[in-house]
């Protein structure tokens, strides 16, 4: 387990380094002077020169890359072109809102466990067929349509939920109320996904010897399912945790914009519109690091629960 842990963490660092390097090269792949691109055509030569000096743009590429990396290691994600504040400060201000959104969506996706379990027990019944068709359809449904339709029906038409904002953070009930639709927007596909996985593995587990033995002993059905079958059947969906984090985090952009919530996605969108390059790059890098960290932890949890997963790192 220790070797695996070290391997996995090294891999994570390597992946982040690759991602950072790609991002760096992408900035330099844009035709023209980066300072020109960042500041726009109307900036004076003095301002451009100052930015060039600050970003070490006149030095060779390798030196620039070195500065870029050593800055990152020290937590320097660059500075905001407009307010001159460190990017990391701005990102960290917005991060809790996004983290709550991602966490809640992950929790909501566990609704898929009882759904999949019930479907597997009553295999080929009406519930199984309906749940199967519905989950297959919602898995691929673009989050943007889910979000906009919910906004249209529940907020604008029925006025059941608030239209915009994150609510009053002092009032937790209000905050939760504002959270419902955004969370469903990004989490609903995962309910379907998890229910499909649990159903498939539950069907497999139910035919295994130890479960058949429990049946033969005449144990009550409910006990067999909860004590012997479901515990094992849930494992494969934990494998998906890493992928889920990456996916859900990425789609927070959509939820935050549709429901006008504060957060990383909204910050990114606004900095894209104002062409605030350092802020865009900083936000994307921070998100990438968060996602790589998340997937690594998910993989480690998975390896802890299931030794077979330790064989193939990555």
């Amino acid at each position, binding site marked *: 387990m220790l070797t695996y842990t070290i391997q996995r963490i090294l891999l994570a660092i390597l992946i982040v380094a690759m991602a950072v390097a790609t991002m760096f090269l992408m900035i330099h792949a844009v035709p023209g002077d980066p300072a020109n691109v960042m500041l726009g055509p109307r900036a004076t030569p003095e301002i451009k020169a100052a930015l060039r000096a600050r970003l070490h743009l006149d030095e060779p590429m390798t030196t620039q890359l070195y500065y870029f990396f050593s800055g990152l290691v020290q937590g320097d994600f660059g500075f905001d072109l407009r307010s001159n504040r460190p990017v990391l400060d701005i990102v960290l201000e917005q991060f809790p809102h996004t983290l709550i959104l991602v966490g809640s969506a992950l929790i909501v996706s566990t609704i898929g466990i009882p759904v999949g379990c019930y479907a597997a027990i009553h295999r080929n019944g009406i519930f199984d067929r309906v749940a199967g068709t519905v989950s297959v359809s919602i898995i691929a449904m673009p989050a943007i*349509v889910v979000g906009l339709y919910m906004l249209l029906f529940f907020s604008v038409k029925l006025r059941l939920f608030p239209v915009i904002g994150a609510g009053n953070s002092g009032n937790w009930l209000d905050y939760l109320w504002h959270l419902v639709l955004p969370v469903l927007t990004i989490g609903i596909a995962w309910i379907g996904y998890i229910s499909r996985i649990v159903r498939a593995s539950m069907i497999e587990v139910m035919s295994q010897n130890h479960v058949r033995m429990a049946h033969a002993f005449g144990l009550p059905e409910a006990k067999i399912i909860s004590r012997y079958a479901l515990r094992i059947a849930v494992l494969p969906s934990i494998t998906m945790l890493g992928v889920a984090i990456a996916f859900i985090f990425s789609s927070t952009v959509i939820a935050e914009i549709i429901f006008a919530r504060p957060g990383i996605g909204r910050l990114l969108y606004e900095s*894209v519109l104002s062409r605030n390059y350092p802020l865009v790059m900083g936000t994307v890098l921070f998100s990438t690091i968060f*996602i790589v960290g998340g997937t690594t932890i998910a993989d480690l949890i998975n390896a802890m629960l299931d030794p077979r997963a330790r064989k193939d790192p990555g």
Partner: protein
Amino acid sequence: MAILEPAKSEVAGRGDVRAVLRRLVTDPMGLIGLVIVISFIATALFANILAPYDPDKIDILNKLQGPSLEHLFGTDQLGRDTLSRLIYGAQIALMVAAVSIGIAVVIGSILGSIAGYGPSWLDSVIMLLFDTIRSYPVIMFALAVVVLFGPSLTTIMAIVIATSFPTYGRLMRTQTQTLRNAEHVLSARALGISTPLILMRHILPNTIGPVLIVASMDIPFVIGIEAVLSFLGLGVRPPTPSWGSILNDGFTYIRNSSWILFSAGAPLILVTIGFTFLGEQLRDTLDPKLGRGR
């Protein structure tokens, strides 16, 4: 004998296609999927015949109308016919999906088969590339690329290719690994046939099927990315109609008319259901193993 063989397998191949089609048509899910997918492609191809109006024709007097006999899905804030815009939007959706997934499948298959067949160090390098790309948050990465290179259809397609080829690469790699020691591959190698030729002739035909099924199921996802970027105003430039930009019109005028938003979401939902149902059914029919765990 040798002359007869190809002919025989060709007949068998045609029989397979017929059997698959028969199963598709008899299963309600498969049939629904097939009908939607065919209608989607037909709509995109024959948009100029099907659309009742010019999608860019502005008619301010009739702006933000509800559905009527003249305008089945109503009109937008400039009085343009929503139905016609949606029909033309199918062209953009189909083009982005077909071109970018096509290129991604080619790149992914080449890299994946090299990873699966080649030496293990090369395998590790390619897998690291796949893992790195997988860890990028797709939509956020897309926003960063758009701000650097400017919004355009080409940018969207480049983003889709760059973020989706590892999926096919991984699948191709696993498939190739199971085949690399198969008898026909080993004997081809013993005969001194070159590696690229072995990959092309003896491995690819046996591995490409599952990759294509997964690719077809990714089409709604890609159309979704195009819709998101165009919705954010970072995709197709106006006035070109795209489902995403029509969604954005609907979002902006949500309080004036819910029809634009409602009808712009419908084709996205239909296309998603169509490709997913069709893909699921094809997968169950052709390769029951692949369906597990998903």
